[in-house]
């Protein structure tokens, strides 16, 4: 088991490294190769004329005058050691590990921006995922145990509908009804969990429901299919033949096997969501990573785009790592192969 985890950790490290290379190539190398200096996107204002002394100084400070491999190395190593960033007109900032650059547009270090946005995204993704996992698995299990029953038929039509409705529709409808029409919830903005838990909860409930809605439907269908397949397995017949109570047969023998593939998908979904809940964040005015990435793309704030990309990628890699480990914990056959 320990060796398994170490192997997976090494694998995850390799993936993160590849992510760094890809991010560098897309955002920094591509403009360089098309003979456009990326310098504009870094200093957030019109650079001095090409070829001037100030221009060369700026290019040198950001490493663009180096050979390609050194450029990558310069960019990568700057993440790890402290240095000072300047836009050439007096504004400077010292940057410490993890130094993802400085946004001269927002006059804030990128790591600070991400640090503010990450809890919002995490709250949204984790809260919604718990909702949809519980709801989806519950509906899916009951449906899967009694395929063809009234519950099953109503449930499956309901989930099909839920899957088909996009969040930019359910989100505003929820807001309109719950907050403005019925006034069940106040119109509040996000507050950090650590500062004001009550307001945090009030601000998160609707985004959670909107986001969980579509996913719950998907998970209900998935659970139903897995449950039906598992309950037809020989080992379920064995469990019944032993004289075990139905609850034990269903939960201990059936559900555990049926949920294994769902664990993997769940972790990946959760990891993906942390950096990509753009629509939900926009609809509910939450300033998470999705919102941050849209903002920075709109303002061509390259250090922020790169920072968000890397953080989102790392979240996905970590989620995958956790999925792999959980899979091995659940299924003993995985551990030894």
């Amino acid at each position, binding site marked *: 088991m320990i060796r398994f985890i170490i192997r997976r950790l090494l694998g995850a490290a390799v993936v993160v490294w590849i992510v760094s290379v890809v991010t560098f190539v897309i955002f920094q190398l591509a403009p360089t190769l098309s003979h456009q200096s990326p310098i504009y996107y870094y200093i957030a204002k019109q650079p001095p004329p090409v070829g001037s002394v100030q221009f060369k100084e700026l290019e040198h400070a950001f490493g663009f005058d180096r050979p390609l491999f050194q450029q990558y190395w310069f960019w990568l190593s700057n993440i790890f050691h402290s240095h000072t960033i300047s836009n050439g007109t007096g504004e400077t900032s010292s940057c410490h590990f993890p130094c993802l650059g400085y946004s001269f547009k927002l006059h804030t270090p990128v790591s600070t921006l991400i640090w503010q946005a990450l809890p919002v995204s995490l709250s949204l993704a984790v809260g919604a995922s718990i909702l949809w996992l519980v709801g989806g698995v519950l509906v899916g299990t009951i449906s899967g145990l009694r395929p063809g029953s009234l519950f099953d038929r109503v449930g499956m039509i309901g989930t099909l509908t839920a899957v088909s409705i996009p969040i930019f529709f359910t989100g505003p409808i929820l807001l309109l009804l719950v907050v403005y029409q019925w006034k069940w919830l106040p119109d509040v903005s996000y507050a950090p969990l650590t500062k004001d838990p009550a307001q945090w909860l009030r601000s998160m409930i609707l985004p959670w429901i909107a986001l969980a809605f579509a996913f719950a439907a998907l998970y209900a269908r998935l659970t139903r299919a897995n449950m039906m397949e598992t309950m037809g*397995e*020989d*080992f379920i*017949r*064995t*469990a*019944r*033949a*032993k*004289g*075990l*109570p*139905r609850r*034990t047969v269903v939960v201990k*023998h059936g559900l*555990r*096997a049926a949920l294994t593939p769902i664990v993997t998908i769940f972790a990946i979904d959760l990891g993906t969501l942390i950096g990509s809940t753009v629509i939900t964040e926009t609809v509910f005015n939450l300033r998470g990573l999705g919102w941050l990435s849209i903002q920075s793309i709109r303002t061509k704030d390259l250090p922020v785009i790169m920072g968000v990309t890397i953080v989102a990628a790392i979240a996905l890699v970590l989620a995958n790592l956790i999925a792999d480990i959980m899979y091995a914990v*659940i*299924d*003993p*056959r995985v551990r030894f192969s």
Partner: protein
Amino acid sequence: MSDPREATLGTAAIEFIPESAPDAKAFLSVRDLRVHFPTDDGLVKAVDGISFDVERGSILGIVGESGSGKSVTSQAILGLHTGTSAKLSGEIWFDDKNLLAASEKELRALRGAEIAVIFQDPLSAMHPYYKVGAQISEAYLVHNKVSHAEARKATIAMLDRVGIPNPAARYEDYPHHFSGGMRQRAMIAMALVCQPRLLIADEPTTALDVTVQAQILELMKDLAKELDSAVILITHDLGVVAETCDSVVVMYGGQCVEKGSVDQLFYEPEMPYTWGLLGSMPRLDRTRQARLTPIAGQPPSLIQVPKGCVFNPRCRYIDRVPGNRCKTEHPELVETTTKGHEVRCHIRPAERRQIFDNEILPSL
């Protein structure tokens, strides 16, 4: 819950014998069992009116091709069709209880404790996520009010008894760590850990190679004798039946076509299907005279069962019966001149014996 008899279940105390319970000696008595599955294509008559008795300490073989209804019969005895769309009728008497009329709670108390099954293909019959030992203990714990430590001790003793070396260490292994033969031994241990009075072995040796097959059969026989359990051995292997069983039921198309003692079935078989089975069985004890003769044709559809005799499309002797009766009239299961030997066939008994002696026996 309020029935006081439930508390004494398993003590084999028969307080009264209801009128409809036949033959007190046989403690399992299946009467006109039918298991039908409604499907989109029509009603599948997987088992269509089968009757047999199992006596204490005896071994009954149920023989037939795939899809002849063998396994469905065994699952009906355990009540495993409850909760499915299957329609069951008939009676299954176990002691003084009709299992088909019993509640799920009553059945659950019997399953594993009084009636246990050894399934074929133990790799898929065991849960891949749980340790072998834990799966056996689970069966013990559900029927005995004991601690986990005691269940573990009973399990290890049982693993030892079925010939698994170093049982305490193997207790901690998962099914995929076991070899095929060891897994089947563990499966037997799981079935026998509560010392059931009836053991149903559903093709227990099909997934095993021949040398292991013999060991497993021997082990099963020994243990059944030791625990005084009756055994229903479901198989398509006549060799296994000849070695192991006391009596045999031959099933075809969901029906019993011939029934009798092992000697009757092997030395005086009277049903053309049984002849076909014997003819397609390889023999090592005789020099080979000809190629094995397969039974021509396919097993019947269980939705559109052939009119008349269920075996008539594949039977080579239908012209021996005048008036095309094999294709129009369903033959009854009738006792032959020997007691306990029943055959479902329109050919006259004397002629059947003649055909067997003159045409079948020489080529076997």
